[in-house]
């Protein structure tokens, strides 16, 4: 991994995610689970490089939390990681786990994505802590990410509760200096049969609910402990209550301000905040996304200023915090805004050269299909030049939405759901059963590239290997579909453009649920596929631009023209040799580079 350790001094430069993994490791975590999702993915990946821990991906976040909960009931420490929207999937278990409590410490990590760098929304998962009545820890840098993770396990056991550790993209993906320690695994607490604690029949749940409420009162005192709460008195005219990455922005922008930094931001240490508020003239709350702290402080009778100056949407940056304090009159109005952004080329993310998802989308576009898409790299097919996706909401939504759209009967073309292999196993299975049950006239395209590509190539139950690389049982996707009652199931090589067209056309014509599985591995993971590249014979290129319709980043315009249109060339370092452009070229101008080529 990328961690560079100076063993002698036991100092390392770790990302927040690696630090969480390291903290869990040193706290003696025995079972770690999760589902990949930016920005949470590297926690499980980093733990998989360390010994003595059972680490494995789950098929979705709810299953991951159930597995972790089972391990906790079995008396060992368990960690469960996910991105913010993953907690929506796991919420069913999470909300009740608050009632049952734990046996071995259970820490749930939610990595939020303010600014939606790589997400479909920017929900603020601090609200889940309040919703479920569990303590919420918010580390502000890599060192705290490690320390808080260790503390979270002890808290979990001391207060018989899952602990929600919440990071954001800037914490998870920022490398910082971390002190390393040794692993101290507490002995497992033996399994103890206790139905009144773990069987949430209404009668038992009613007995557990008061414990949740009483637990929060005791936890509010813990929030004032020095390992979580830091009160820094400086200039008394401005006091700031903050947590997480916002603390570092506040220190950067208003270094003279007094600061109360929360490590546990639910429940709140209201007495300590009251003392702090009494010592400062103006009390600000600086927090990303929702006015979570602000509203709780208002409800507790504080006079605070927050979202009036600091935006509710997007990630906070030093610039935005500076603007906020300027509007509040704390800082001078920034005078010269400095040079404006210079005009430059748009560079949105694109499907990689050789991506096996390209051909199916090209075919769907040309067949006039209405495409309900899903979460993965292939969502990028919604953009130019493929423009072959009409919806994408949440994991697994494609199949259910396609079913509904087909029932509506208003689609101007054949209704097709497109879903990746990992996403299909995550939340597509129940939706496919439902489509069969409803006899929906939909085609489901499963883009099986053998990996969870969007997040960097994590294995899943249809991959055939585990997170540590060892062989694992492999789900047969076609057999699963047939077993669910799908009668039309066809596998096709997406590098064969003609066969892909034919398979999709036949599937669309089939009067019921049809499934087409495209079966080429991802070109980037687990192994980089680099076949002999192609080149353009410029004399033959008629500059028709048909290859440009693939949206391949390896194909670029040259300065040479044919009847005024720019001819194309292929960047040999980027081409993976997938053959698609050679298949579409009507002038046969695209050929293998030929002798002399060697794999670098």
């Amino acid at each position, binding site marked *: 991994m990328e961690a560079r350790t100076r063993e002698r001094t036991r100092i390392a430069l770790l990302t927040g995610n690696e630090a969480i993994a390291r903290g869990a490791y040193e706290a003696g975590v025995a079972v770690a689970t999760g589902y990949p999702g930016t920005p949470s993915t590297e926690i499980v990946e980093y733990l998989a490089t360390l010994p003595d821990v059972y680490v494995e991906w789950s098929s979705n976040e709810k299953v991951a939390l159930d597995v972790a909960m089972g391990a906790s009931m079995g008396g060992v420490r368990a960690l469960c990681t996910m991105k913010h929207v993953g907690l929506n999937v796991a919420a069913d278990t999470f909300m009740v786990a608050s009632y049952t409590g734990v046996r071995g410490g259970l820490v749930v990590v939610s990595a939020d994505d303010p600014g939606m*760098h*790589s997400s479909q929304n920017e929900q603020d998962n601090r609200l889940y802590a309040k919703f479920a009545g569990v303590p919420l820890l918010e580390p502000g*840098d890599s060192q705290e990410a490690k320390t808080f993770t260790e503390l979270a396990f002890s808290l979990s056991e001391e207060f018989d509760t899952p602990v929600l550790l919440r990071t954001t993209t800037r914490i998870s*993906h920022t490398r910082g200096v971390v002190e390393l320690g040794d692993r101290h695994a507490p002995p497992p607490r033996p399994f103890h049969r206790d139905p009144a604690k773990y069987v949430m029949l209404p009668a038992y749940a009613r007995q557990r609910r008061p414990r949740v409420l009483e637990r929060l009162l005791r936890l509010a005192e813990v929030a004032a402990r020095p390992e979580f709460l830091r009160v820094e008195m400086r200039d008394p005219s401005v006091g700031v209550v903050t947590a997480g990455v916002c603390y*570092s922005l506040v220190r950067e922008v208003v270094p003279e301000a007094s600061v109360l930094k929360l490590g546990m931001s639910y429940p709140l240490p209201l007495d300590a905040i009251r003392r702090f508020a009494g010592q400062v003239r103006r009390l600000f709350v600086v927090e990303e996304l929702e006015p979570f702290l602000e509203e709780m402080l208002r409800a507790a009778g504080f006079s605070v200023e927050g979202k009036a100056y600091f935006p509710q949407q997007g990630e906070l940056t030093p610039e935005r915090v500076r603007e906020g304090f300027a509007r509040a009159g704390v800082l001078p109005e920034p005078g010269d805004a400095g040079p404006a952004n*210079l005009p*430059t080329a*748009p560079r949105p993310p694109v499907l990689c050269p050789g991506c096996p998802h390209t051909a199916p989308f090209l075919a769907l576009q*040309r067949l006039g299909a209405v495409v309900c898409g899903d979460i993965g790299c292939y969502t990028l097919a919604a953009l130019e030049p493929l423009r072959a996706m009409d919806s994408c909401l949440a994991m697994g939504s494609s199949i259910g939405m396609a079913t509904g759209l087909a029932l509506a009967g208003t689609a101007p073309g054949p209704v097709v759901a497109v879903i990746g292999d990992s996403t299909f196993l995550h939340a597509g299975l129940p939706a496919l059963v439902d489509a069969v049950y409803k006899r929906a006239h939909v085609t489901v395209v499963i883009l099986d590239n053998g990996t969870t590509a969007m997040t960097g190539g994590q294995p899943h139950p249809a991959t055939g290997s585990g997170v540590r690389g060892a062989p694992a049982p492999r789900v047969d996707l076609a057999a699963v579909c047939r077993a669910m009652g799908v009668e039309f199931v066809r596998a096709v090589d997406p590098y064969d453009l003609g066969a892909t067209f034919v398979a999709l056309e036949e599937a669309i014509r089939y009067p019921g649920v049809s499934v087409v599985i495209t079966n080429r591995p991802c070109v980037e993971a687990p192994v980089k596929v680099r076949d002999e590249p192609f080149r353009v014979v410029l004399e033959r290129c008629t500059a028709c631009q048909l290859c440009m319709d693939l949206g391949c980043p390896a194909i670029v*315009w040259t300065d040479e023209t044919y009847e005024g249109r720019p001819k194309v060339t292929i960047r040999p370092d980027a081409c993976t040799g997938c053959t698609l452009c050679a298949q579409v070229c009507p002038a046969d101008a695209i050929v293998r580079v030929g002798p002399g080529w060697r794999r670098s």
Partner: protein
Amino acid sequence: MQTRNVLVVGVGGQGVLLASNVLAAACLARGYDVKKSEVKGMAQRGGAVVSFVRYGQQVHSPLVERGRADLVLSLEWAEALRWAAYLRPGGVLAVDLVRILPPAAQLDHRTWQASYPAVEVERLRQAGWDVRPYEASRRAAELGDGRMANVVLLGAVSRELEFAAEEWERALREVLPQKVVEANLRAFHAGRQLPQAAVFPAEARRAAARAFRVEVTPSWCKGRGCGICVRVCPEEVLVFGPDDRVRAASPDRCTGCQLCQLLCPDFAVVVREEVAVG
């Protein structure tokens, strides 16, 4: 010491993170506090990548504020423009003159203008920045592997930061996989000797857009029974009409490539250039 602010920027796959990892390792070895922040995930799929590195006695914010960067190290021309505004007045912009045209810059099939910025080094200098253009990719290719352009460029600006050559070497050895260490050390030292580029790439010239007309003879056209022209048209000009025959729905998009005419098995399609009269 005051906190130093560096941006390493480029296109996904160019090795932005490797370059910033080397810098961060050098900082850590010096005993500095260091924070290095980047966004992974979607940004890596051929998109723009930025890595912020801040180091000093104590670093707070993981993000560099606009107008406060001491150095922007850009592995690509258009990316240099995207992040230049982060530089402080007089800040150093070291840029590899390689140009990677993204698909999104090549979508205008009417006028064929790539929405890609011209290489205008002097204009940037007039904005008050210390602009240093290098042919780092070309030098790396000469050394046997164009992918080492990141390390060549790092070498080219290495004297700008306070680390000695030996400190850079140690950081490179620490970060790089063993089998490529020696090649990259050579690339680093080649970068240290690399002079700034004096000649800049010129703009491509394109012909003016022309107008075309697509004519279909309905009685010769097999329509949906064939559909070759509909599928092959790069601009999706052709559709099936209500009579199931092919017609040109958006002739203004036609670029005159004549694929439909050439591939029609029934000679039913003809592309004609519109000639302005008068």
